[in-house]
């Protein structure tokens, strides 16, 4: 098992190197002199000063060398300083990531606690009204643009009813009530797609499990329907849901880019978009690294959860 985990962690290294290198190359392709981003607006410098800045930030080196210098520092936890405000990127990213994580987790947990029971109810009461409603919602939830859902939620709960704030962010640890109130609409908009996918997956998994022989055995033993479904069937029906979780981590980051822009949340997505426009590629580079690490870790956790849920799956042999 440990051997397997170590091997998987080692496999991440080339992927991470590749992702960060691609980003590095892409950022260099953006037209405009990166030195411009380093000096204040309206500031006039002579050739010598510009050359000095260029040297200081290794901008005069070949692409590969620049990348190598960045990588050398990155492995030591130093992601450099933002060219916009000179703040350490690792620190800033950390606090931004916490914001995204907070509402990502709220979105995810809500999706899970709505999606799984709804999917199971839909399977158990197959063909009944509950099933139809759940199916329609899950089909719609996948096709609806999440930011448009956010706009419609702002229209209903913010503009029309005035129940919830529609802009900004309050730290949930400082003021839990206001924090949750601010988070409600963005988390809803972000979570709907995940919820729909979870519902769909748990429904079809549950239908498959319910048709298996051991379900009949469990019932024949005289177990109550509740025990049969919630204890015996659920465990196996959760497997595909775990897969969706792995895939959703990336989706939540992507979704956060738009949702944070819409709701004015100072999270990672927002930060990255601003950094791309400002040509602040130290920030972009660090942010991409963090996202890639998170997604790859989520994939690993997904595979491990698989083995834990289904003893038939063994890794490392």
């Amino acid at each position, binding site marked *: 098992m440990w051997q397997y985990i170590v091997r998987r962690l080692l496999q991440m290294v080339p*992927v991470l190197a590749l*992702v960060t290198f*691609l980003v590095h190359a892409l950022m260099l392709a953006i037209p405009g002199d990166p030195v411009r981003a380093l000096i204040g607006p309206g500031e006039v410098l002579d050739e010598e000063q510009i050359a000095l800045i260029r040297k200081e930030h290794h901008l005069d080196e070949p692409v590969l060398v620049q990348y190598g210098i960045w990588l050398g520092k990155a492995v030591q936890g130093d992601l450099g300083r933002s060219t916009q405000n000179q703040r350490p990127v690792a620190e800033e990213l950390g606090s931004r990531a916490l914001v995204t994580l907070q509402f990502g987790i709220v979105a995810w947990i809500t999706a899970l606690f709505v999606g799984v029971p709804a999917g199971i109810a839909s399977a158990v009461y197959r063909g009944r009204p509950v099933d139809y409603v759940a199916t329609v919602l899950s089909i719609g939830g996948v096709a609806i643009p999440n*930011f448009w859902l956010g706009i419609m939620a702002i229209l209903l709960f913010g*503009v029309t009813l005035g129940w919830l704030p529609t802009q900004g962010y309050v730290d949930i640890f400082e003021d839990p009530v206001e924090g949750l109130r601010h988070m409600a609409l963005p988390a809803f908009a972000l979570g709907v797609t995940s919820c729909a996918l979870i519902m769909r997956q748990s429904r079809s998994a549950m239908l498959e499990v319910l048709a298996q022989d051991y379900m009949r055995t469990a019932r024949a033993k005289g177990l109550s329907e509740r025990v049969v479904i919630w204890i015996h069937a659920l465990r196996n029906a959760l497997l595909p849901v775990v897969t969706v979780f792995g895939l959703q981590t990336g989706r939540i980051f992507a979704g956060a*880019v738009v949702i944070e822009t819409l709701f004015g949340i100072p999270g990672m997505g927002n930060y990255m978009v601003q950094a791309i426009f400002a040509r602040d590629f130290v920030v972009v580079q660090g942010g991409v690294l963090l*996202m890639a690490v998170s997604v790859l870790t989520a994939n690993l956790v997904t595979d491990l959860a698989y083995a834990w849920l289904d003893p038939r799956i063994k890794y490392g042999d």
Partner: protein
Amino acid sequence: MTEGTLPGALPALATERPAVAILRRLLAMPQAALGVVVILLTVLAALLAPWIVPVDPEEMDFDNLLSGISAEHWLGSDQMGRDTLARLIVGAQVALMVSIGAVGLGVALGVPLGLASVHFRGFLDDVIMRVMDALVVFPSLLIAVGLAAAMGGSLATVILAIGLANVPWMARVVRSQGLTVRELDYVAAAQAGGMSNVRIIVRHILPNSVAPVIVQATLGMGYAVLTEAALGFIGVGIQPPTPTWGNMLQQAFPMLDQQPLLSVVPGLAIFLLVLAFNFVGDALRDILDPRLKGVVAT
């Protein structure tokens, strides 16, 4: 099952051409039929735009700013008095061009990469699939933002960005289909008979990949429409004055409390078209091979 036909292959029918048979079965499914109708209507509206657009989408009607549904403006007008219906139809052209372009690019790059992965195995397979992993890890929306910042928001950039995001999925689908086919007895027989690797790929693996690629492509069209809208909304997609459903939503957002209709209409259009692509994609998967459920990304 005839020789050379996997569940993924198009069902061979003696009397009908496969495309006709598939279309017949599609139309027999209510959801899929609805999807086909919505897609056809969108395509028709886009093609006939020059004749059916009521007024010039750029024309400003200063007597009717932010109007609701009216005789002059069937779907209302925006803050510059431009007709929403006209802009919606021109936006449909853009949405279709983006989805066809992006999926086309995904197929054009992803299928050969997937085939190469199967063909060369070993080291090159590893390299290709790791690059694909890297592409999947990177949120496609950020690739698009980066590309748009690098090259300016235009139709080509948007197609390139969304198309790149499609590549790894196509490559994976083709590769997994190829790996299955490669292990089958008749392929072993062909190999034993001296058939070259390249011919095996062309004769056996490629035809068997057609069905999953079609399914993935259909679902990818919906995804492209959604991504174009998101890009337009954050302002890095195709730039105004060209109306797209995404930038229409962006321009409508500050007017949300004054004229909600402006935000409702483009969103509904996106929703309906994506829904239609998903309906058709799901139905195609069920018709072509229900076992693809796990393979094809939804």
